[in-house]
């Protein structure tokens, strides 16, 4: 959920500003933020030295992290405190908290950054939350245990995966209503959109697969199945996914199989499998797209993978039960 957002220019402006202010960490600005479910904190990792330099205290059980479109703030979904935490990246301090429904886990932002779309696992709804006021604007009923949330580039459509109903729900933003249910694989989790918006990839945790949805007619156009020598299909549990900016490669964390798959998007074939830590979950590519950062949920660490050689470079201890990684360069 990081590198392919179109606000890179805003981010570099921010970088300039930070340098001008000559804050202590200005020389090591390239940073990974990793939420830790059990520490109620976010680990701050210096990408140059590849070590954790500090932690930021946040609300209880932080899970999904996302940058605001201007790149100045990090939004945190806290499942146990039912809150969003807004962290100012210049000071690395929480500046504001607001209610985020019940047990929030995943969300996405509207392209203008004004609205959060938050899946409500217990209620089986998608809520629209106004980022400025923290008010819930809409509450759209969908299937039980909604999980991953993805907003289209034009901001008109939100896709939500439902772990129980094994569907992707298509929600119309303007009408705040459910447009369509698309049957996908078992336990769908996270999304990636191709840069042209024509394909939506969704990982199916209990199906060892990715369903590829044609966003024009909202149907499943294909399924990519993962295989790994020495692992059974039942041990391949894909969750985290990201794509390169040119939409040519996808990177999928295979969960219990302890590997990350590099996928050629055009042919839908796995090109490389990289051994990482225990149950890799969230993945993020750096701006240069030379390095992949992989959060390992069951080994409390982060594996740094060299994309060109498809090799793990280093594994760094982060917080307890790490969940999401977001890069700021």
């Amino acid at each position, binding site marked *: 959920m990081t590198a392919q957002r179109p606000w890179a220019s805003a981010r570099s402006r921010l970088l300039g500003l930070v340098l001008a202010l000559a804050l202590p960490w200005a020389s090591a600005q390239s940073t990974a933020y990793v939420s830790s479910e059990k520490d109620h904190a976010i680990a701050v990792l210096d990408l140059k030295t590849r070590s954790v330099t500090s932690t930021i205290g946040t609300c209880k059980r932080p899970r999904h992290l996302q940058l605001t479109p201007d790149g100045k703030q990090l939004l945190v979904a806290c499942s146990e405190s039912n809150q969003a935490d807004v962290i100012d990246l210049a000071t690395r301090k929480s500046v504001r908290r607001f209610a985020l429904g019940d*047990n929030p886990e995943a969300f996405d932002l509207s392209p203008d950054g004004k609205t959060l779309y938050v899946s409500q*696992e217990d209620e089986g709804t998608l809520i629209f939350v106004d980022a400025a006021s923290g008010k819930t604007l809409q509450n759209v009923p969908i299937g039980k245990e909604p999980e991953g949330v993805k907003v289209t580039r034009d901001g008109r459509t939100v896709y939500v995966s439902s772990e129980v109903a094994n569907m992707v729900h298509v929600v119309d933003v303007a009408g705040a209503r459910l447009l369509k*249910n698309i049957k996908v694989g078992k336990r769908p989790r996270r999304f990636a959109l191709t840069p042209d918006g024509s394909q939506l990839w969704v990982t199916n945790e209990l199906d060892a697969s990715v369903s590829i949805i044609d966003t024009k007619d909202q149907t499943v156009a294909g399924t990519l199945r993962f295989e790994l020598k020495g692992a*059974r299909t039942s041990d391949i549990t894909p969750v985290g996914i990201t794509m390169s900016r040119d939409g040519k490669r996808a990177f999928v964390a295979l969960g219990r199989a302890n590997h990350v798959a590099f996928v050629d998007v055009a042919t839908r074939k796995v090109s490389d499998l990289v051994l990482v830590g225990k149950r890799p979950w969230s993945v993020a590519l750096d701006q240069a797209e030379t390095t992949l950062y992989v959060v390992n949920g069951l080994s409390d660490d982060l594996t740094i993978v060299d994309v060109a050689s498809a090799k793990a470079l280093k594994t760094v201890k982060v917080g307890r039960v790490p969940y999401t990684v977001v890069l700021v360069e």
Partner: protein
Amino acid sequence: MGIGLLLAAVMPAAAANFKVTLLTPADDPRLERARIERAALGHPAGPALDALKVAMAEGRFELDAAGATLQLTQVEVSDAAGAKAATAKAERDGAVALVADLPSAWTLAASDGTKLPVLNVGAAADALRQGDCRRNLFHLGLSDRMRNDALAQALTARRWSHVLLLTGPDELDRERSAGAQASIKRYGLKLVANRPFKLSADPRERELANTLLLTQGSYDVVWVVDSDGEFALTLPYRTALPRPVVGDAGLVALAWSPRFERFGAPQVTRRLSKATGRPMDAHDWPAWMAGKALVAAAVAAPKGPAAAFHKALADVELDGSKGVSMSFRAWDGQLRQPVLLSDGRSVIDLAPVDGVMHPKNALDTLGADAPEKLCKAR
């Protein structure tokens, strides 16, 4: 017998409607208030109906999309003959499947009263998966052998290899103790002794009742078989040696625990708690899974006919928030599933434990495996 509750709203006429009957014991002794208040781990904390309803409500989206509905009726029965008659009546009335939360002999009678699939959510007896198995009988909960194998795996992993077995006084305890001994042997553990116990304050029976006397000797762990549970609950911290207790107290093998934190389990537990005001317990999970299996079958064969529904039911692959996809074993109708090992405060381990291997599916290390051919009816 014969109180019928209509639980699901009748849906538009165009939708295919599948009728399901839940059979439960009349005046269920397991659900007496005092019994629930001091329920041992794994014993029911409430009626099976609760979790079945939650699962069906969860399935609404999928059912709507497929154009199918499920209609649930509960029938209380008083004995095995009543169970048999009730299943036959359900079949005549157009039911497509039954769910049974009954003692094992009644469950068997129920499956003999019909050709319809019977989803067993209450009886753990190995006989129902072995000598008394039936083609139409499916098991959502754990068998005794699965629980025993899970514990034996955990003991093996910890190298707690010398086991002192304490066996309760009734026939069921003797059967379950034989099962525990078979698992102890299967995993290469050593049975130090098997001693009978009895709840008693009579000084003449102290050899049977006094936990300090019962637990003399040399061993790594005490395994207690106590279907009633009252004796087992008093055993931890009352042993002669400072050793852990497993079996029906201490570390217990369970289908579910409200303390389970992984694989989205807290959400499932919370949904049931919201619906019923009580935590979701080990006995609720099989009923919830029965509901999910019925939903999955209706979604797979939304237009019927019944034969298509039955085939879909036998072939379901279910996500039960235990981290893996689960399906019925072809050879005995048992749902293969991970087993939770818990002391009631937390989930300490999952079986199959790390490192246990199987040529096809590690889940099949728990319970009777295909090559044993213990079920002749399938």
